[in-house]
């Protein structure tokens, strides 16, 4: 117990140390690009005007006009503070706070994922219980599984004729496979003895499915769901960058237009943190259904 705690503590310390080193490297690497107040050489009026048009006013002191470049730690910090201090502002369809954007993305992911679960888990059950169906469907699954969300998008837009539903469809189609395969695998590998016992006791098929197979396969199913959630969260950013409008992916795209690296970095961090939280949620769920033989 004590050993475990001290291990946790040491790991935490090491993480903090790594973070510090990372930040220090960042700081040192961006130091040179920070504005250096050099004595302005004598410039002709044309040169001064040119410099002004280039956003480098030689006469002005203080903060130079924002140019795209790798941000310093201080710039990054103020970007993060700026976004977090106003997460819910809404300036019409093209400019919303980060929390609203995340809300749109999460709603899309949630909907697409839920649909995928509704299809994949029952279908996975059927596939897992019947080797014939498994073999028949396997080629389709193998072909469809590796297709990238970006490849689905044009087809979805063309056939569904609605960009937000297309986004949800792409989440659906990309997150359905791991759930399907894992469910099928989990169901197929339920121990023979347990099924035999159920058969000897003349348990109805429905009861057998819910009381024997489901609990036995639950850990595997949840593993599939966890992988799928990770994929769904990966997919949404790509899909929204393509479709635009709202969401964290659109935010990244919009800031890329502006070549604003601090904002892009901020979005990357946010995507990472939200993805981690989603994964943690599933880790908790998974723990709840795990059993020991």
């Amino acid at each position, binding site marked *: 117990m004590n050993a475990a705690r001290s291990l946790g503590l040491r790991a935490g310390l090491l993480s903090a140390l790594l973070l510090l080193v990372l930040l220090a490297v960042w700081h040192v690497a961006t130091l040179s690009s920070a504005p250096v107040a050099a004595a302005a050489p004598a410039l002709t009026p044309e040169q001064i005007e040119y410099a002004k048009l280039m*956003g480098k006013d030689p006469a002005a002191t203080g903060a130079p006009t924002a140019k795209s470049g790798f941000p310093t730690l201080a710039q990054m910090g103020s970007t993060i503070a700026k976004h977090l201090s106003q997460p819910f502002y809404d300036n019409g369809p093209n400019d919303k706070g980060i929390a609203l954007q995340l809300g749109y993305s999460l709603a899309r992911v949630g909907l697409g994922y839920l649909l995928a679960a509704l299809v994949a888990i029952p279908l996975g059950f059927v596939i897992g219980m019947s080797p014939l169906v498994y073999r028949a469907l396997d080629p389709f699954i193998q072909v469809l599984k590796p297709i990238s969300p970006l490849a689905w998008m044009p087809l979805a*837009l063309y056939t569904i004729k609605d960009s937000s539903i297309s986004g949800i469809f792409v989440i659906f189609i990309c997150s359905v496979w791991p759930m399907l395969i894992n469910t099928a695998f989990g169901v197929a590998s339920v121990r023979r003895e347990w099924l035999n016992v159920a058969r000897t006791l003349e348990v109805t098929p429905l009861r057998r499915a819910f009381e024997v197979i489901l609990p036995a396969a639950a850990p595997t199913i949840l593993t599939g769901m966890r992988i799928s959630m990770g994929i769904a969260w990966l997919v949404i950013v790509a899909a929204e960058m393509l479709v635009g409008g709202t969401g964290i992916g659109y935010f990244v795209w919009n800031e890329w*237009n502006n070549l604003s690296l601090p904002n892009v970095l901020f979005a990357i961090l946010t995507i990472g943190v939200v993805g981690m939280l989603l994964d943690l949620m599933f880790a908790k769920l998974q723990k709840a259904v795990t059993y020991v033989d």
Partner: protein
Amino acid sequence: MRTDNRFDPYDADRPLMMRCACGQHASAEEHRGAEAAVAELKRRSETAEFEAYSNDFIEASLVKALFPHDAMRRRFLRAVGKGTAMAAIGSVLPVASLQAMAQEKGALEKRDLKIGFIPITCATPLIMAHPLGFYSKQGLDVQVVKTAGWALIRDKMLNKEYDATHFLSPMPLAISLGVGSNPTPMNVATIQNTNGQAITLHVRHKDKRDPKDWKGFKFAVPFEYSMHNFLLRYYVAEAGLDPDRDIQIRVVPPPEMVANLRAGNIDGYLGPDPFNQRAVFEEVGFIHLLTKDLWNGHPCCAFGTSTEFIQKNPNTFAALYRAVLTSAAMAREARNRELIAKVIAPQAYLNQPETVLTQVLTGKFADGLGNVKNVPDRADFDPIPWQSMAVWMLTQMKRWGYVKGEVNYKQIAEKVFLLTDAKKQMKALDMKVPDGAYPKITVMGKVFDPEKADAYVNGFAIKRTPNA
């Protein structure tokens, strides 16, 4: 006590704002600057002088579109008399419904509209009509929605997610013809902007100013069916390079061009502004030439919608048309340009540094080679959709094999570039109507006669079409 504290925390009469209230701007001053620009432009747009000007502008644009040759206009007026001519022109779309619109606003078939745009300066009239309230003045509740790319604009128009949109002017031709999509009739109501593009090259090519040296270069254009693609092809072909074999032309959405140029993925692009100026601002590229120098007054983007939308919502369309034309009237005035740059710079619209937009719109710009250039007509906003422009685009589509077989240039041009409605109705009123809006065009010193489109296509040495 210091008196120059920027934030004035001790002033009891002022709110303490560390940043602007809307969160759009870095400082309260910047916020006030943008608000002041909107207010000033609004004020200018509400003066009786501007209203008279914009009414005249709209009417003159329509009459000019009907009579491309001034001699013809005068002959016509002499033949039928001023009153009859005004009545006839006034009785047809859009003047009549436009003027009706000003009075009875209840007649709108649809109020809530979604209009798509790509964040480039070509969309200026369409965007600024929103903050300046030109749409709401016509009784419309318009959302202008930023869109990630031209293919998406096409799809969202075909899906009817957008009611009207910012198009590349050849797109409605392509969509109506069914090249690159299912054939769906589209219309160009106005040209959004003329000129306003440039060829930008990577800074490492500073010494390669002759296109003959560009063998093996990789270029980007925003879309296949774009003036950018046609002009770039035209330009390199005039220099003796085959655009399909000697260089590579890729489709890259405008906002991604600068990032690709910096990464060295492409050697240059013929793209829309502000991305040419942005490349200069970022010190990754320089402006090789303005497309104005290839064809002065060439169209680039257009404002349009589907034929179906116009037929179903004629009054709404007229209202929209008037809002955009008012905007164009305002954007044409050079004195408004600096303020316009301020208005369209925020995140909700173009999301670009204001100085970049100012340089594009005022035409006083750094070219990336150390020179300050002054070209006031670098970008202009002449709304007339001359059908000869459409015919020229079709000749280039034919030249490069985007359309195959016989092309009935004029028929398509008149179907898509909306000037014919007026003419059709004038014919119905038994009036002698001029033949078409086909002023001649000069591209790189060569005169294009829309009457001899096929001969023009066949006259090029480098092309994809076999000689007829």
